[in-house]
């Protein structure tokens, strides 16, 4: 109604000079008119100019007097023609009214004040103060002196009145259509979409977040790793067995029983089930032999190999435990070349910190074939790591109890501009392969790395606990991009 009034008036008139006057003429509250003008101005239907006026309004005290009369008038009226004692009068009026009333009435020379008695000096008085206050309340103007007097008594206070003068704006139309926020089925059915205007959309804000699920970053990387191995012709080893015997985890790998990795400081041994029940006895005998006194051209380690040590159960410290089982099984059949891989959980009895966890994922690949050389190992490593985005590699001589030669793999990180260690590799020792029953010329080349480290480098995460485990931030999982490993 207010909007129609404003737009309608402007259709025929040049401008609305004063919104206050306009409101009065139209019989609409000024507040309502102001709101409409503001909204129309925002959409540039009209152009509004501010008007400011100073007005007077009653203070709380002024309001009381406008209703009940001024204290001096009340006081005057309370004095009977014969006069009254001050005590009595105070009782009648109350202390406050008496105090102000008597002061003002005296100033007006209305009273005869004795020591204890008050009487009227004049017969009749008018309550001019009340009359002026009522005028102010009704928006009428007073002369300067009266204003000063009322201001002095703090019965009125100034008030800034704001209004507008209004002209047509560039988007002026006699009728405004409300901009729509969305197109609905109803709009289509009614066909009113043709007249619809839309509220301007804010493209600097994002859309509604999608409500979908997300996969874990580490497992997204694992999936790509698996894809890479499959493309390179590797088949996956069954690694769904956390509990392993020391025999398959260490002894079968020609890792001596006094090796530091076999300390309780490094390995989780089990109370339940504490020992393994069966091992292939003839193979165990050959492993014992090679540890104790060598054979197959080896000097051996020259110590008393203990079956009890081999029987001790543990949580596998590497997936190579599975590799040793797989290779042993392979050696029991007529020879066939194989390429195996796995990506699964391993356990280390280590203190948890920014870069170490008691469990992590190991990626392992191995090739078992006749006549393999270090050149084959390096070739397959170049193939593998270039798919992870590392095509500059260097190899450093290293020591590992079950591989000889052993090579640490360093990759040049284009982002860090330096060489970083990215994995370990080597040829399984003859002392491991020959007791299994492989022919002399069969060699196994293998490499391993953790899944966590490349993932941390890839996503710029420097605390492993932010990536893996219960302390992970769900926001990270949701915002994590696709893993592009293996795409180039």
């Amino acid at each position, binding site marked *: 109604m207010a909007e129609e009034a404003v737009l309608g008036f402007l259709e025929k008139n040049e401008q609305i000079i004063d919104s206050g006057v306009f409101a009065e003429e139209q019989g609409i509250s000024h507040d309502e008119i102001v709101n409409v003008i503001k909204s129309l101005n925002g959409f540039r239907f009209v152009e509004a100019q501010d008007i400011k006026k100073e007005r007077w309004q009653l203070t709380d005290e002024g309001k009381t007097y406008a209703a009940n009369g001024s204290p001096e008038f009340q006081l005057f009226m309370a004095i009977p023609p014969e006069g009254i004692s001050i005590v009595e009068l105070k009782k009648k009026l109350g202390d406050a009214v008496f105090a102000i009333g008597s002061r003002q009435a005296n100033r007006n020379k209305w009273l005869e004040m004795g020591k204890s008695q008050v009487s009227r000096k004049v017969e009749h008085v008018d309550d001019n103060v009340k009359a002026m206050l009522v005028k102010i309340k009704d928006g009428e103007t007073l002369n300067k002196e009266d204003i000063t007097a009322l201001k002095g008594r703090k019965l009125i206070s100034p008030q800034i009145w704001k209004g507008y003068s209004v002209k047509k704006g560039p988007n002026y139309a006699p009728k405004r259509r409300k901009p729509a926020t969305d197109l609905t089925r109803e709009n289509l*059915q009614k066909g009113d979409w043709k007249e619809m205007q839309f509220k301007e959309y804010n493209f*600097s804000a994002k859309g509604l977040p*999608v409500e979908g699920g997300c996969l874990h970053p580490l497992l997204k990387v694992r999936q790509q790793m698996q894809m890479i191995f499959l493309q390179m012709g590797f088949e996956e080893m069954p690694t769904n067995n956390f509990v392993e015997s020391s025999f398959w985890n260490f002894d079968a790998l020609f890792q001596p029983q006094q090796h*530091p990795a076999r300390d309780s400081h490094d390995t989780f041994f089990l109370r339940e089930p504490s020992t393994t029940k069966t091992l292939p006895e003839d193979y165990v005998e050959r492993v014992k032999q090679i540890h104790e006194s060598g054979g197959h051209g080896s000097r051996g380690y*020259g110590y008393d190999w203990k079956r009890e040590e081999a029987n001790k159960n543990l949580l596998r410290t590497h997936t190579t435990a599975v590799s040793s089982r797989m290779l042993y099984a392979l050696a029991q059949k007529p020879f066939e070349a194989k390429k195996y891989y796995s990506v699964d959980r391993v356990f280390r009895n280590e203190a948890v910190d920014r870069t170490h966890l008691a469990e992590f994922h190991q990626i392992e690949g191995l090739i078992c074939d006749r006549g393999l050389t270090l050149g084959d190992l390096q070739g397959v490593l170049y193939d593998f790591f270039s798919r992870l985005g590392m095509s500059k590699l260097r190899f450093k001589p290293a*020591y590992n109890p079950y591989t000889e*030669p052993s090579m640490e793999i360093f990759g040049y990180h284009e982002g860090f501009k330096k060489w970083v260690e990215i994995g370990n590799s080597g040829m399984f020792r003859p002392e491991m392969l020959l007791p299994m029953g492989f022919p002399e010329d069969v060699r196994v080349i293998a490499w391993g790395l953790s899944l966590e480290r490349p993932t941390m480098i890839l996503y710029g995460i420097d605390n492993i606990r932010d990536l893996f485990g219960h302390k992970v931030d769900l926001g990270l999982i949701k915002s994590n991009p*696709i893993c592009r490993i293996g*795409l180039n």
Partner: protein
Amino acid sequence: MPTVSVGRDLLFEALGRTYTQDEFEELCFDFGIELDDVTTEKAIIRKEKHLKEDEDIGGDEEIIYKIDVPANRYDLLCLEGLVQSLRIFLGLDSVPNYTLADISQQSMLKMHVKPETSEIRPYVVCAVLRGITFNEARYNSFIDLQDKLHQNICRRRTLVAIGTHDLDTIEGPFTYEALPPSKIEFKPLKQVETFRADKLMEFYKSDMKLKKYLHIIEDSPVYPVIYDKNRCVLSLPPIINGAHSAISTKTKNVFIECTATDLTKAKIVLNTMVTMFSVYCERKFEVEPVEVIYSDGKSYICPELSPYDMEVSLTYINGIAGVTLEANKVAGLLNKMQLHAKQSVTKNDECIFTVSVPPTRSDVLHACDVAEDVAIAYGFNEIPKRKPSSIKPLPLNQFSDLIRMEIALSGYSEVLTWILCSYKENFAMLNRKDDKSTSVVIGNPRSADFEVARSSLMAGILKTVAHNKDHPKPIKIFEVGDVAVLDESKDVGARNQRRVAALYCGATSGFELIHGLVDRIMQVTGTPFVSPGDNTGYHIVSSDEPEFLSGRQASIIFKGKPIGTFGIVHPQVLDNFDIPDPCSFVELNLQSLL
């Protein structure tokens, strides 16, 4: 991996030249060790005591190199061994020939082993270094090496414990015994009082360094102990030596005993001690043997310094390393790794090396170790690589699959529509005009359904919605697929372009949901949301395409270029496809995000 700390200047002096840190690191890398840290004694003390930079403490400002060495190279655990190995590797020195002093069995020092020792620590091996010249650095290195060996191969003294003594303060023959603790009494190293062995064990319970070794013998009824001829206690292995025979920088003749539960390791430890420090003896690389005699009459003379001979064929070495080196070259490379090799030729013309493994190289167990040394000396990084056969997927298809998965995870179901569509569907029904520059047009269509190859995924998706009117709303579908576009630069004048499109259809348009999906696609491709003008990511600007409702559509700008549009599908288009419900739609060029 054990770490050895050596003074840098001392190291360079011994190597006969100085290196920049980079040069030295390169040498380490090739040889298979690693410069782990560069520090000073001062910094180490500060770190240990958790002191700040400016606090004054004792200690030297000399630069210390901390070097990681392989766990099976005990000969690299001291400066002497590192220097020797590197100098030989660099071709500066030849392999030393370690010898036993030529003395008769009668004049040899004797160590008699009592049978009770078998209950607790059955083995002992000994040797003498005659006429040694220590100075402070050499002496410290001698002590450090014992400590390093104790921590590593000796498994914190459980397997082997080393005792070193000033031979001029004691007199052979010696006896290795095992006695009840109450029967052993002596003044231990660094103490002024005499202790009974059981009391001594109590005393050491508060000793930070020694308390961790007490458990090795504590519960045994007998403790191992070594006496000299005059019942002077040399040591109470594996805990402590006697004060009487303590060595100092002035010591000239050193008696070394290693008691053990593992004889092989005891021999390795003894060999490491004597080979490393015989370099400072009057007769360089000569060690005086000691005869160890057991109570059952068995005896042996130690140390055993004669090389271990191993036969390795040239074919085997080349086969492991993946190289085709000639015999002379291989022999030279073996020398660099301290392995002396003698060539011979078998009947079938095969070249065989008799490789002499010196007492310093206990890590060489098998021909494969020899082959590795050749590969190291040749240079791992010089070996020709053999690329295995393998396949690679097409990155575009892999990428498309990853994006498809993400969109499906966002709650959109995949549709698979036809490439072929009618001319009308490709243009007029989408409010588009054919400017003849975009569309691959078929010359002999069998029906109106197959007139052109699609220029966008939109028609196929709208047709899918139209045919699923009864499907509960909202409908959320997507497609990843190719469109065909005209391209003058191609031989045939056209090419494919991979697109992704998605649609929302419900009671309301779902414009903000489609906008959200655009954000999601950008997020999973790792593209940041940026302000206009910034070409590192994407932003959105309003657009004016005929297939979308005016004012309710936008262009996706990726790295400054438009790659797609989204918006509320124009009601006229919806009507053309006979769709009664509002839809929002996005289509973008996926290839540009690869």
